[in-house]
């Protein structure tokens, strides 16, 4: 457990820029509101080529053009929506969490509706990657997925590679990028939001939240699915560098719920790969704009890599026998205590 917590977030990087551990940021303050960007106005500026390097009076316009070209669209801050689900109580994270947008639309976590959401409803927020600048931007892939530990409390270890494009984009304004990891959890396990908050304070990464059914006490057949969203700082100005890579190893603590009864005495659940995106945001004149990079093979394709977790489950065959013996034992205890009390209570007649 000790080593797993120390290496909970392990970010290694190659290339010119170094990774930086995010400062402790508690998701309490609302993020700045983000305006919708109209790209049509700037479509005409596409003719300015990216090879222009002289910073002159037009430099600022060029930067803005490239900015709109690559970062078309922005995430609109979502309004406060009252939800009745028992997720974390912070409602002030407007637009920050992708899962919140998902759960605002859908009641429960479902694989097909989630993949649909990722493929279609996130597309306005994607950074536009045209055929000309296909080699720009950021690519993410999951290198490894495994389950660490034994018993009902384990950690899901995922190793993620972030790779910047073959060409750099030096004309962009300064920007900060973060990696967003969305881990969908099956019915049989849950992530404890309070534990994650506690780890967040100790280890240090940007944000974490759990959405869906976070009731810690219910067995799996009385609960719904949940998902964890983790934001990790990927560094500043990474789009300026080319062919640079960064590896992120994350250990997500998970807990098993009580499983439905099974004849074999065990229940096997499968956890799939996380969905990963990069969000880069930059300070505009008045607003902060951001957009998402999603690797092409992420959207719509079913997860191929899964890990299996074998969790003990009660055996139906025991039901009758256990109930009978339980009640017999309780009855025997009762009878003995009743007998002892009546025989040895203060009913003695004094000999005075």
């Amino acid at each position: 457990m000790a080593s797993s917590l120390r290496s909970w977030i392990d970010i290694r990087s190659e290339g010119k820029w170094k990774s930086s551990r995010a400062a402790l940021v508690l998701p309490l303050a609302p993020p700045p509101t983000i305006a919708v960007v109209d790209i049509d106005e700037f479509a005409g500026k596409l003719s300015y080529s990216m090879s222009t390097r002289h910073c002159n009076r037009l430099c600022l316009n060029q930067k803005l053009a490239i900015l709109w070209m690559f970062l078309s669209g922005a995430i609109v801050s979502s309004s406060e929506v009252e939800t009745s689900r028992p997720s974390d109580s912070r409602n002030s994270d407007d637009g920050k969490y992708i899962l919140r947008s998902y759960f605002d639309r859908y009641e429960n976590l479902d694989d097909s509706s989630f993949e649909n959401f990722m493929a279609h409803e996130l597309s306005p927020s994607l950074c536009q990657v045209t055929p000309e600048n296909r080699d720009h931007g950021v690519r993410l892939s999951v290198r490894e997925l495994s389950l660490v530990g034994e018993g009902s409390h384990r950690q899901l270890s995922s190793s993620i590679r972030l790779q910047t494009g073959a060409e750099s984009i030096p004309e962009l304004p300064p920007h900060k990028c973060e990696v967003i990891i969305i881990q969908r959890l099956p019915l049989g396990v849950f992530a404890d939001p309070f534990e994650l908050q506690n780890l967040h304070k100790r280890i240090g990464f940007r944000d974490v939240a759990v959405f869906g059914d976070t009731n810690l006490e219910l067995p799996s057949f009385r609960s719904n699915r949940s998902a964890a969203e983790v934001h990790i700082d990927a560094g500043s100005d990474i789009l300026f560098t080319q062919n640079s890579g960064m590896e992120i190893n994350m250990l997500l603590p998970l807990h098993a719920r009580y499983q439905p009864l099974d004849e074999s005495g065990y229940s096997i659940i499968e956890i799939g790969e996380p969905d990963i995106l990069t969000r880069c945001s930059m300070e505009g004149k008045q607003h902060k704009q951001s957009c998402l990079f999603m690797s092409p093979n992420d959207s719509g394709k079913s997860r191929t890599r899964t890990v299996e977790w074998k969790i003990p489950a009660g055996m139906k065959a025991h039901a009758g026998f256990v109930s009978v013996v339980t009640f017999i034992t309780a009855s025997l205890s009762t009878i003995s205590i009743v007998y002892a009390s009546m025989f040895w209570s203060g009913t003695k007649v004094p000999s005075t």
Partner: protein
Amino acid sequence: MNSLKPGSIFLISAILRVGLILYGEWQDEHMEVRYTDVDYLVFSDAASLMASGQSPYKRTTYRYSPLLAFLLIPNSFIAASWGKFLFSASDLFVGLFIRIILKQRKVPDHLCTYSMLIWLFNPFTFTIGTRGNCEPIVCATILWIIICLINGNVVQAACWYGLIVHFRIYPIIYALPIILFLDPRFFQSGVKPLLCDWTSDQGKIRQINSQVTDQFDVWIAFKNIFTRSRILFGLVSGSVFLLCTGFFFRLYGWEFLHEALLYHLTRTDPRHNFSIYFYHIYLNYERDLSVLEKLISFLPQFIVQLVLVFCFAKDLVFCFFVQTVAFVAFNKVITAQYFVWFFCLLPLILPWTNMKFKWQGVCCILLWMGAQTHWLLWGYLLEFKGKNVFLQLWMASLLFLAANTFILILLIRHHNYAPVFRQHTGVKTTQKKHE
């Protein structure tokens, strides 16, 4: 041992607790395994919600009275460990009350000291307060109620009783023995009841109205149920309970009622715990249990409580003790913190036991701890090694119940039944003042 003054005992206990709280803060900061109980974080979160004007029930798994959150509001602006200091102070109060009760019954000094040490230096009790568990407050209140009753302060006892039942439901089991205890022969208006003193004549019979046996007392009690002190106690405690509950219901609505009261009454947790019922509940969780099945599982508890009350009500403290042990043992859910409920009463009954520490006492302690450890080993295999040992764990909980039953029976057998009060004689000058 005789040279240990109560003052020094309290001082050392206080230093120990302060030290543990400070150590706990350090451990929380520097080690992965927290010293502080998870429940304490729940209370603190609920208290900070309350401090900002919101409902404490917005914090999931907060299942206590809003009073607790209210007591912990200073966590937000004085220190995060204010609550722990409060609970540890209650812990020390329990020690003080133990001494007061035993001194009032004229227990010799050395036995008083032993009893205090058993509570104040029991590793289980000092960790529970310093880890941030609220049970010491409940224990202190119960003991204060006992002090009020043995001093004849029925109204004050009733107020505290109503409050504590609102705070934590389980003291409702003490309602019947208290009512029986408020015997009109001892509780006469304007007159303080006379206490039976501890004597060194262990095994001899106490002086009690020799014409009646205890069961006969109970029969008379039934006939004379509506006496002044009983009605007063019932009305005052009931009103205090309804006032508190009504007030918080007004503030926090149905959420308060569900989380703080109804949850505890209907709680069936299929997750493994010391109770013998956990596996039965888990195996039957997918189908709802019928009313008959629920009744059958409640029956042993009900019968045992009734019989214990009718046999031991006059010896109020012993009655509380045996009731609490039985209540915990037969409950649908047993967690380690429940043991404090009878640990605080154990020092009060020990001066009246015939059981010798060597070797009967030692054997009982070893048996109880052994049964617990045995359960914990299977629990470890299940939870931390992922082996299916449900059946073995369930059998370990049966063994634990058997151990509890055996020790309870031994304590009953070796107890010198000592009614708390004796009757006033005709001559008023024999009334003693017990300060």
